[in-house]
């Protein structure tokens, strides 16, 4: 399998008044044409890892890595100008909440068209046809009508599908989805995931799926990285999640209430300080 993305020893640091805070500490992984999940609690550095790949961390934050390559080409040394060609066209990112990531004063169609025309030299007419086809691909009924709507007129689930359409239209090689469904209801969640899954598989893209929901990730991804305090504590094949060995992963799994296995008290995660200081596992 050819590697789309390779990351070795990635660190993200933020200077604070009390010294340097390490948000991500020595994370290494590689991504092929597969679905890779990154799971962890808030503050575990999972979103920071996603942002660091796109070089979206602004000073005073610092990103260092021994290696961060997209198809063998270095990402860290590129200028801002060159990075802009990477973002969207080669690596795109879906953010958590469509309410905050769509432009509220621009019609849906115009926003998607803008994303497309920035990266492809096509006429307006062609771009419009492609946009409507893309809206159809993300299972939006009546795409002509949605094309003319403003973001506040669409529901959360539809907004997230519009985001997916916008991110897929430049045909990137890698998509980073940062909690794409946490703002949605359970019933809509599965629908959005199915659409994303189908599009990613059809196009042979690599997907990095960032989420705090262990079960969701294991049912959706091929491989899972589990992060704790900025480092990867365990990597697993998603279907073997329930054979996880690291006490942190086990603790997370056991702390969930379950409909099919009721119990009086839930297990509470007991944190071992060693988890935070051990070496990162590579995946």
């Amino acid at each position: 399998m050819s590697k789309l993305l390779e990351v070795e020893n990635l660190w993200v640091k933020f200077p604070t008044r009390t010294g340097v805070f390490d948000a991500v500490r020595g994370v290494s992984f590689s991504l092929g044409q597969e679905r890779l999940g990154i799971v962890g609690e808030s503050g575990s550095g999972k979103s920071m890892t996603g942002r660091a790949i796109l070089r979206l961390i602004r000073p005073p934050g610092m990103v260092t890595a021994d290696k961060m390559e997209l198809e063998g080409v270095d990402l860290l040394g590129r200028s801002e100008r060159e990075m802009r060609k990477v973002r969207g066209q080669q690596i795109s990112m879906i953010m958590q909440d469509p309410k905050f990531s769509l432009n509220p004063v621009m019609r849906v169609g115009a926003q998607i068209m803008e994303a497309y025309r920035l990266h492809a030299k096509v006429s307006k007419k062609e771009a419009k046809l492609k946009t409507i086809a893309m809206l159809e691909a993300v299972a939006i009924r009546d795409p002509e009508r949605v094309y003319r709507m403003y973001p506040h007129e669409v529901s959360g689930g539809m907004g997230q599908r519009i985001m997916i359409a916008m991110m897929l239209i430049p045909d990137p090689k890698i998509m980073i989805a940062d909690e794409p469904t946490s703002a949605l209801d359970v019933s809509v969640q599965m629908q959005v995931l199915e659409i994303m899954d189908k599009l990613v598989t059809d196009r042979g893209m690599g997907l990095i799926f960032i989420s705090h929901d262990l079960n969701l990730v294991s049912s959706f991804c091929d491989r899972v990285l589990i992060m704790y305090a900025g480092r990867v504590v365990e990597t697993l094949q998603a279907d073997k999640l329930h054979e996880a060995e690291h006490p942190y992963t086990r603790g997370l799994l056991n702390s969930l209430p379950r409909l099919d296995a009721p119990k009086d008290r839930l297990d509470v995660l007991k944190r071992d300080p060693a988890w935070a200081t051990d070496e990162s596992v590579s995946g």
Partner: protein
Amino acid sequence: MSGIEIEGLNVWFGEYEERVDAVKGANLSVPKGGSFGLVGESGSGKSTILRAIMGLAPTWSGKIEILDKPVENPRGRDFYRAVQMVFQDPYASLHPRHSVDQVLSETLSLHGFTDIDKRISKLLDDVGLGPSFRFRYPHQLSGGQRQRVAIARALAPEPQILLLDEPTSALDVSVQAEILNLLTDLRAEHKLTYLMVSHDLAVVGHICQDIAVMQVGEIVETLGVEDMRAMRTKHPYTKHLLESSLQSAAG
């Protein structure tokens, strides 16, 4: 004796063409000491029922009885002594410039308690925080600790009924387990009645004995937790909800 009795509750917002019926003809009854869960998608009106009980929704009709007495309009001090609410987002529901001590002592003095100092230590102990948290501000606390403060504040007037509006949805799963255990312990210790709103069926199934499923403002089905676990549902929507939540849990 019944804790909460609701019959034919309607809640609406706006007038004439702009009128939106958020809750339509809802019936539910929670026995004293019981725990009842409301589930449904966002916008189905589950939080609106809680707000109507608390007197936070201005336009409603129907019958709301708390501890066998119809509620007054506006709600009096006795009402708020018996019924308290814990809100969804602990980051938004605590005053950022009031310390834990101020938050709790304000509530206590409003309800006419005099032994405030002793009660604050007791409340912090009850929610598992301890005296070192007493003079901290919300920004010095984690999400789970803030939710514990919010629960302590709700417990301050020694209520008999707690309304819980998605108390764990803003928290991590590991912290969620701690808060759910705390809620279970508190209910046993103080003999509380819970009415809980959540979109997570597993959470509701863990805390509640009876569950009502809501869809676009109406309660479509009320069932016991055993029936829910065994998938003995009558309404197709309940089935759909259960299936999607089992699907995401099964892996």
